[in-house]
């Protein structure tokens, strides 16, 4: 197997540091907008400000599963054709699954904190909450299955298959649960529960900030996994070379 030489270039590090700095600045602006500048919501008061954290996490929690699904499909495609690229896709898949779980967890927790004052209960089995819980369960079971099936190529294949199943299951769950019951406010943009334009700055700055943050964490986790894979491959190559020396 042909391995790329580990890059000693400082460019990725500088880029990551710059990205981190930009993310922090945008998050700071978002915080200022959400907590101090945007007008207080009429019926719910200051409690509604958690929405500026709930919405970005909920939206991004729906974006990272697509990354996971695309990476898993790429893994299945490259599995026999280009093993080293396939491992890269697998690293992206595991990174995006972990980031999905984190974002959906935060989305569920902030939603629950908001539901208590808004609806009077911590947890309503309404359509969107339930769908998010299913989404969370699917990706937690994906990560558990990865752990159970070992870190070898076989485990990666099984994980990719599970990821495809999860990606297909989410829209079906969404439809089924939507029919089952609905209590969640209508979609914020372009729906009945539309948001007044004065709230937009806080919403957009926070979506941008948490997206920058999420993709930074995704990239860091990816490069960590990639580094682990490289060490593993080098160790395997050394073991093969050592065994060849003994037989000679």
């Amino acid at each position: 197997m042909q391995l790329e030489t580990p890059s000693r270039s400082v460019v990725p590090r500088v880029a990551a540091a710059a990205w981190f700095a930009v993310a922090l600045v945008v998050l700071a602006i978002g915080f200022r907008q959400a907590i101090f500048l945007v007008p207080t919501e009429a019926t719910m008061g200051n409690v509604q400000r958690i929405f500026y954290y709930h919405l970005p996490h909920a939206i991004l929690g729906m974006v990272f599963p697509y990354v996971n699904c695309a990476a898993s499909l790429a893994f299945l495609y490259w599995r026999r054709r280009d093993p080293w690229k396939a491992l890269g896709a697998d690293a992206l898949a595991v990174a995006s699954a972990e980031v999905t779980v984190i974002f959906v967890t935060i989305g569920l927790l902030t939603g629950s904190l908001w539901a208590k004052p808004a609806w009077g209960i911590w947890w309503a089995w309404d359509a969107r909450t339930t769908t998010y819980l299913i989404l969370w369960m699917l990706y937690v079971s994906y990560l558990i299955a990865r752990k159970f099936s070992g870190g070898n190529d076989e485990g990666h294949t099984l994980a990719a298959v599970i990821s495809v199943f999860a990606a297909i299951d989410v829209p079906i769950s969404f439809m089924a649960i939507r029919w089952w019951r609905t209590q969640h406010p209508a979609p914020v943009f372009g729906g009945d529960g539309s948001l007044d334009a004065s709230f937009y700055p806080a919403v957009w700055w926070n979506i941008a900030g948490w997206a920058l943050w999420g993709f930074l964490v995704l990239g860091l986790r990816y490069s960590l996994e990639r580094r682990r894979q490289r060490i593993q491959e080098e160790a395997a190559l050394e073991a093969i070379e050592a065994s060849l020396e003994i037989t000679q």
Partner: protein
Amino acid sequence: MNYLRQVTRHLLKDLQLEWRSRDAINGMLFFSLLVVVVFSIAFDPTGNPTTTRQISGGILWIALLFASVTTLNQSWAREVRNSVLDAQRMVPAPPSALFLGKALANLAFVTVVELVIAPLFVIFFNVHALGNGWMLTAIMPLGTWALVVNGTFFAALGLRAKNRELLLPLLLFPISVPAILSMVNATTDVLTGDVDPIQPYFWIKLLAAYDIIFTTVCLLLFETILHAE
């Protein structure tokens, strides 16, 4: 035609193996009976007939879900003994025929369990359908297939994993949520009969769509997991 013959061959082999031991069916029967009895102890079915009617659809499906999980792992364990699965990998027949044969065999086993457990259920919980009872003839096979097709697939997927007995429900339950929702709601609608009679049709259609989608996915991906290493 050739494919159909291969599927039938796999199906007949599994049915014959089961007929010799009858382990899976007997185990599932007793297990689902136990679940039904435990539920009737957990609450009083004769004292609350309305509640019983509302929740008995759910209890029936939970009993069947748990019972099928206990046996689905075993259906592949049979292939692992004496390295039969390695032989299956080398067979020129398409791997999906092996999968389809086994899923159909599991469907047959769970259906037998349903045919025995349903009358017992009627007696223990004192329920009879207030809605269109004939609809159950569509709901039961569709719901069973939804559990069995994914269950057979994930049992095969978990064959070489650690803790495979635990892995199957961990994967099967979240994936099956839309199917469970559909089958339980459709059954409850039929049993209580207090909703608009159109309602169960929606759930039956959703269940059928779920079956078609996941059967296709399982057939397409089975080769990948059979040759995973």
